[in-house]
């Protein structure tokens, strides 16, 4: 019962804030909605026996990526909504409608097809368990990720520096 109530609260937060990210005009408010969304997601990850992923979610997304977003918004000083006026267009109501349709279709499909959760191992989602699988079965994707990050670092510096 307690789990269901908590899930309902977090789901409500996620629904409201993900609408907020899109619907709000001010980019800083958008970013704040997204931060709240990530917090609620981290709580849901705990429900799904993913403690490590939940902690990384807060550290990486809320602690680093969203701060970078805020930094860029403030650096370009796009705070005033008049900077980018969103004109009324036919594509907006159509897109909202299609998104709603997409959710309804997927939700119907999910309800028809899927069953219940399997029993989880005791230490599923702990750092030890994730680390074990990350460095045995998944070591090649992991190393590829490090190359990807290296490319991103080099690319970001090339992009942002005026003179190298």
């Amino acid at each position: 019962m307690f789990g269901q109530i908590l899930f309902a609260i977090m789901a409500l937060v996620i629904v409201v804030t993900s609408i907020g990210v899109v619907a709000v005009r001010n980019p800083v408010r958008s970013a704040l909605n997204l931060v709240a969304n990530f917090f609620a997601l981290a709580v849901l990850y705990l429900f799904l026996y993913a403690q490590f992923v939940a902690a990384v979610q807060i550290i990486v997304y809320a602690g680093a990526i969203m701060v970078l977003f805020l930094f860029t918004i403030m650096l370009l000083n796009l705070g005033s909504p008049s900077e980018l006026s969103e004109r009324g267009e036919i594509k907006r109501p159509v897109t909202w409608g299609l998104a709603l349709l997409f959710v309804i279709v997927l939700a119907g499909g999910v309800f028809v097809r899927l069953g219940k959760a399997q029993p989880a191992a005791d230490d599923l989602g702990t750092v030890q368990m994730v680390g074990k699988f990350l460095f045995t079965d998944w070591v090649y994707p992991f190393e590829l990720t490090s190359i990807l990050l290296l490319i991103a670092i080099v690319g970001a510096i090339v992009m942002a520096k005026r003179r190298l």
Partner: protein
Amino acid sequence: MEELLSNAWIVIPLRIIIVVGFVLTAVPVLTWVERRVLALMQIRKGPNRVGPAGLLQPIADGIKLFFKEDVLPERVDRFIYFLAPAGFLIPVLCAPAVIPWGPDDRLTPIADVNIGILFLLAMTSLTVYGIVLAGWSSNNKYSLLGGLRASAQTISYELAMGLSIISVVLLTGSLSMRDMVLNQQGGLGLLNWHVFRFFPLGLIATSIFLVAMLAETNRAPFDLPEAETELIAGYHTEYSSMKFAMFFMGEYASMVTISAVMVTLFFGGWLSPLPFAPFTWIPGPLWFLIKLGVFIYFFIWVRATLPRLRYDMLMKLGWLRLLPAALVNLFLVAIILWWQK
């Protein structure tokens, strides 16, 4: 008593009261200590009129801040303007939840989670939101600059801090703060502490953490986000009354928290420096508080001694000195551990 302490509904609120209560009581005391110590170092008197040795000065300050007019500047983003001080204070007060204060695990930590140090890193990295949002919402160019500086500074120094913590994680083989303290126990006393482990590697990791912790708490010489002389107090220029007090409390509380992390990770937490008779008579929590006091004194000492860095020097120190040093240090620690196996 034993029954009461095994009841989760009693013991967890009790733990929260102990930890948060301690941190919040430490704040007014620290404001007095800081001014007295600074006065001592600069050969002047400091607060000495209100109460004996000025001890009642924090209460007078509190009353003043409480009854001060709350100025709301024009054209601020009101919701975010009110949210920002709370967004700064709440993570700071959440962070000490995983720090063990003594050998008795019934009273502290509030939650001995197996990802304790990750929780701490997450909470310390969230404090930057309060500063950034305060700077942005104040509709003041100095505040905006303060917010920008704070965000860049926090992201930069978090990396070096995280890498120096990872070397401790490698030594312990666990992310629980309790295990980290227990790993420093041993017959050699303070030579078992992580700071002296693999001399000088542990010392290097400690020094990197020390610099990073000054930068993370925005204290001098890294107080660029609120530099009075160039940014007229930066992100909290437009704040007054209790909202300013919340920023102030947050800064001192984060000083206490991060000093506690330092003590736990590198200086043996509640362990006594020498494992024989006269030292072991002093109970563990008291040792913890003594060490905590030393680091808080260190914060004030540094503030009185060092001039503020220029911003490009700050970035250079973080990215070009501390980060490579932390990486090499981590690499060497890993090699030695692998060698020992």
